[in-house]
């Protein structure tokens, strides 16, 4: 198991190197000149040349890439072109906000979706099932930003339970976390239901029931463990989706996270920030998948590493 984890961590390195090359090339090859975007269309040539030189953009592309790699080995992501601040410092200020949001959304997703899916499966073809799955279909279909505005309208403007937007504590976190996690929760709930239904009819579950075990014991101790395997697979994917979805939710709820930062940085061709964020997101997604693989071993006795 530990060997497997070590192997996976080592395998991250070439993946990350490939990510740096791809991202570096993409952001440099698409049209758009960060120095011009800083100076402005009407900005003078002298100011433009000065900014280019200050940012090292006057050097050939491969030198820019190797100096980026060199800095990376020293755990230095460079300096933001737009904000003239260390990328690590910028990310240190913004990343916790995004992690807080995606983490809460993930917790909401699973806390809400797993009981809902189990309930729908256990009470299948009843009103509870139809209601839960109806809710799940709405969840999958509704765009997160729109749900965000609906939540603001109901819970912040009419009921005054939560603030409209901003950050600074758990009351600021509830609405964005629900808006972000709801789509994923719907998917997980549907998956949970179908997966549990499949397991409920298998021989070993029937045997457990025949042995005279209580119904909920059969569900929780025997059926659920196998039924959770596809849900764990989803967890790895969910991390990536949530980080992507955070971009929109952070803008709607005015949370200063990396989502807002990356949008602005892409518009402004702020290469070091885009590279830095992509690298960190790549690590997050890879770690999310690794976590899912480890959880496989925990939930599924057949899986051995």
């Amino acid at each position, binding site marked *: 198991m530990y060997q497997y984890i070590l192997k996976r961590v080592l395998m991250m390195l070439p993946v990350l190197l490939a990510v740096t090359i791809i991202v570096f090339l993409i952001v440099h090859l*698409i*049209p758009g000149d960060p120095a011009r975007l800083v*100076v402005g*269309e*009407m900005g*003078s040539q002298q100011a433009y040349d000065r900014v280019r030189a200050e940012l090292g953009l006057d050097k050939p592309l491969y030198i820019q890439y190797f100096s980026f790699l060199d800095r990376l080995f020293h755990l230095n992501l460079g300096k933001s072109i737009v*904000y*003239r601040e260390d990328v690590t410092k910028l990310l240190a200020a913004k990343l916790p906000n995004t992690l807080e949001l995606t983490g809460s959304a993930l917790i909401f997703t699973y806390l809400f979706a797993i009981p809902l899916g189990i309930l729908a499966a256990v009470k299948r073809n009843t009103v509870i099932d139809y209601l839960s799955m109806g809710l799940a279909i709405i969840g999958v279909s509704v765009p997160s930003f729109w749900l965000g505005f609906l939540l603001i309208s109901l819970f912040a403007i009419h009921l005054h339970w939560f603030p409209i937007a901003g950050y600074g504590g758990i009351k600021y976190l509830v609405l964005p976390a629900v808006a972000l996690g709801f789509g994923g929760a719907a998917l997980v709930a549907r998956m949970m239901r179908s997966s549990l239904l499949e397991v409920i009819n298998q021989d070993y579950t029937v045997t457990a029931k025949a042995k005279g075990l209580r119904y909920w014991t059969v569900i929780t101790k025997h059926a659920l463990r196998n039924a959770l395997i596809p849900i764990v697979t989803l967890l790895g994917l969910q991390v990536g989706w949530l980080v992507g979805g955070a971009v929109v939710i952070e803008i*709607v709820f005015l949370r200063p996270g990396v989502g807002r930062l990356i*949008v602005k940085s892409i518009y402004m061709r702020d290469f070091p920030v885009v590279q830095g964020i992509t690298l960190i997101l790549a690590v997050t997604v890879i770690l999310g998948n690794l976590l899912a693989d480890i959880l496989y071993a925990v939930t599924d006795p057949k899986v051995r590493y």
Partner: protein
Amino acid sequence: MLKFRALRALGVVVILIALGVVFNTVAQGPGRTIKEANSKTLVIALTEGPPTLSVFTTAQTTEPLEDILDKLVSRDAQLNYRDDIAKSWEVSADGLTWTFHLKPGVMFSDGTPCDAAAVAWNIIHMRDTGASAYLYSAVKDAVAVDPVTLKLILKTPFPNMLYNLSSSFAGINSPTAVKKYGKDYGVTAVVGSGPYIFKEWVKGDHITLERNPDYTWGPSWMSNQGPAYFQTVIYKYIPEAVTKTLLLQAGKVDIVYKVDPTAISMLKADQNVIVLNSSGKRLIYMGMNVTKPPFDDVRVRQAMNYIVDRKSITKNVFNDAGSPAYNYLTPNVQPQVESPYTYDPQKASTLLAEAGWTKNSNGILEKNGQQFAITLWVDAITARVQVATVLQSEMAEVGIKAKIQQFDPGSYGAMFKTGKQQAFIRLYEWDNMDILEWFFNSKRIDSGINKTRMNNPLLDFLFVKAEAMPTLEERTFVYRLVHEYLLEQSPWVPIFYPALVRAYRSDLGGYKATLDHVYLLDLYRK
């Protein structure tokens, strides 16, 4: 008897004084102490944060700088040039020497004097290395005669000087601070002599300013001649229009610059919000590359001007938050000229037929076996994409096939250097006639600023003449010729003037704004 008369006269005087005080209080609102006590923090919502707060590095509008930096000259709401740190000025008969008399005792917030030497340094520094060097390209030298007298010696007469000196980019910075912070100036510090002092910049989120307690040199057209009333001002960057609107309605934001057209009716219905609408200084237009077929034919370009139903776009795309555009200059800017173009697809078809374009069996225009098929570029901003879509369908009605190609705002500007553009939607924001020189002078083709790629010796000649005219009247006269000639040549289809819609909480008093800025000096919470 005498004593009684004296007492009666004294009584009258006392009553008159008392009435005067009451009248003055009513007229001016509550006194400074009350205003200051009520006015703790003001939150202003903007859409995008600036890349830097240094006018020497960026030529983009940066609202907080208007409160941090003073200028030599200000422009009031009626667009008249008024005093700022210069109390008066005069121009020599030959138009080559401008003398400015500065207010005494003006200080930068770092404790250094904002005198004639400091202003001269700013002008020369901007001219030689700054992003808005064009502001002072006519300046040969700036001389501090004494601490309160500044002379600008020009190479040629330049009647537009007051416009440039009052521009958003002409803010005066502390030379000591600019030298001290070097590359970091505008990032970690910016020092001026304005009513507010830079305190904090949380990148991508907000900029905080604190009141300058020593500020007593405000423009004479402001009622408040002392420090501002609000202690703290927060410029909050809120990209999402709905969020901005909701925060204003909830009282979390006090002023919204540039209200989204979709939010106007909702805000107007809110009793706690005041919505102000003015004509603004922006123009949305469709440009055409005059060097590429089919737009190398002036008749085709003129036809395009008859195809567009500007009134319909104003109503249906922009909810009437602005007005249809027929001129190349924005509504407040002279010289306005009479445009011959109205919505007339029939006339467009006639002009296209004259240019050799006839409809084939599929209803598409053709010439020498070539279909009239173009690509229309647009930046991926919802309203502008909607304009492009309307234009596409209006072109289809006369038999033109237009394909829309969207670009992200970061790429869009750079694409024009390639010269591959055929037709494109753009917006400009400016309120001076020299914008025509900026967009149509052939010397700016390679830099991608002259996007229509007009290379016209007559225009170039007129631009040189206009910029060297000794008086504003003569300059305006030459620009009128330019403007009329451009309408005839039709490199653009002017489409829409977006209104400048601002909204603020009704508990604010002393609201005073120009096209560029909401002046904070008079502003207080009731």
